[in-house]
């Protein structure tokens, strides 16, 4: 199988605030791994650290057996990590097509066409709206666009930060269906979610983060059954 991502004992600070207190985890090729936890636990901070936007004071981050702890953020994407940040960060003024094209900014020219077709295959809703201004898309479509754009760079590892946030249940189901499909098609996925139930149902393995530390870990199934997780995140 092989490990795609190894995070070893990272400590991240926002000024004096100690947000991540020694987190370690790994993601194997072909897996869906999820990080769940309450608001402010440090999930987004962890993803930002992997994608180079924040730096850890200790430890190391390895991607495909190479340390990326000091790699500048703009080089992370071309190494094969795509980060879909929290809150649907799309280019509002551009069309759907232009957003996707931008996602291929660091991609080899001869792969763009293929990737675009793949994205449209995974997200038929986007294919119907190639010329629509992205800012006028519905919330769910914007989330799909952000995910599609991230796929344009041929990522080995796709990091999704709360893709289901603010979506109606039926759309949440759709998004998770797509996540499963992407994974089946060969993309390794690191998923951050508030919606623990959904996340655990698709995840191979999961880590629970509490105030900057990992408190529990196991397979998705194990954690879904665990009393602690049920009490804290699944409503009893």
């Amino acid at each position, binding site marked *: 199988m092989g490990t795609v991502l190894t995070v070893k004992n990272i400590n991240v600070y926002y000024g004096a605030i100690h947000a991540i207190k020694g987190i370690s985890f790994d993601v194997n090729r072909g897996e869906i791994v999820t990080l769940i936890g309450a608001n402010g636990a440090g999930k987004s901070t962890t993803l930002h650290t992997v*994608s180079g*936007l924040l730096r850890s004071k200790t430890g190391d981050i390895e991607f495909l057996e190479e340390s990326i702890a000091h790699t*500048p*953020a*703009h*080089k*992370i*994407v*071309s190494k094969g990590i*795509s*980060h*879909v*940040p929290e809150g649907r*960060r*799309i*280019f*509002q*003024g*551009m069309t759907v*097509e*232009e957003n996707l*094209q*931008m*996602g*291929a*900014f*660091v991609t080899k*020219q001869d792969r*763009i*066409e293929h990737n*675009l*077709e793949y994205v*449209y295959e995974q997200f038929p809703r986007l*294919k*119907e709206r*190639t*010329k*629509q*201004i992205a*800012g*006028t898309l519905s919330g769910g479509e914007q989330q799909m666009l*952000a995910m599609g*754009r*991230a796929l*344009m*760079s041929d990522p080995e590892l796709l990091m999704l930060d709360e893709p289901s946030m603010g979506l109606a249940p039926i759309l949440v189901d759709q998004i998770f269906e797509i996540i499963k499909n992407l994974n089946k098609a060969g993309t390794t996925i690191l998923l951050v979610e508030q919606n623990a139930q959904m996340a655990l149902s698709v995840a191979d393995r999961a880590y629970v983060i509490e105030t900057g530390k990992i408190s529990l870990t196991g397979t998705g199934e194990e954690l879904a059954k665990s009393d602690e997780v049920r009490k804290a995140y699944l409503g009893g």
Partner: protein
Amino acid sequence: MADRILKSINTRGLKNAVRGSEYKKEALISYGILIGGYILLQLGAMTGLIGRNLQGQFVPICVYVSLAISLNLVVGISGELSLGHAGFMAVGAFTGAVVVRVLENGIGFAPLRLLIALLISAAMAALAGLIIGLPILGLRGDYLAIVTLAFGEIIKNFMNVIYFALDENGHLKFAFNHEIEGISNAGRVLTGPIGATGVTKIATFTYAAILTAFTLFVVLNIKNSKQGRAIMAIRDNRIAGESIGLNVKKYKLMAFVVSASLAGMAGCMFGQNFSTLAPAKFNFNTSVLILVFVVLGGIGNIWGGMIAAALLTILPEALRQFSDYRMLAYSIVLIGVMIATYNPTIKSRISAFWNKVNPFKNKDKDKGKKPKKTGKEAA
């Protein structure tokens, strides 16, 4: 329909996919305004319809149009507020003044002297832009506005204590904060608060118009390049830009430094149009004036800024005869320009008219496009 769209995407690469037709439209209008304006003013001068006073404004008009274009690269395209464009202009103006004087004995051919001065001015202004931009442009927030404002003031005050002169052997002498001894008036190049003196005025309307065209060419090409789209993407959403692997600092710096060097060239041309030029000319008001051109023309709208710059430079001169009503007319024009460049109805009219006469019209493409236009511009 859908597969036709897909096909059209597939046949175009990343490079030209984004708004190719809009780029052509913008380029055509901008170059049209420049060439049309040039011909109009030349004709006016030849037929005597345009008086001496206004003819004296021809070079400044080109310079301010050029400054409006280059500032738009930072304010409109990169989305950063710069309040020190006059500072870069000053760097270019005084660099140019020294270079032209030094070359006067060696190079007799004035246009070549001007060209060399322009290039060195551009390099100096770019260097200034790099020094300012490097520590600032990686940060989030409006630090650039504060720092460029300070830069403009610093350059102005710095030039107040800079003395350059040519001695009788033609050697360049420099002094800081005091006059250079034993120099005839004719030998003075830069004299502190008096500024550049003894300039031979080698700038002409045609050279200035060529510089404006060059500025336009550079800015429009950047805007339509892959780098330009990265710059605009970061402006639209910085976090999304970072997430797709854009080097935010690099692209912001690129826009800022190019803009600074173009302003330096404009300043150099400006300086070669007056026999004397004091540092006080490049004060905060001048920076704000250039910003006003950009804002009035519609931020990011290149040709809007060009029109605003030209009108607002011509106007005070042209309105001289109406002395009492001058400021009234000036403000009416301000409002008029603003309405014409911002108002979505007028914009869509212009756009509809354009679609009728557009020589590049591609029937397939335009059909689905028209109604979306106004919403996008507002965003």
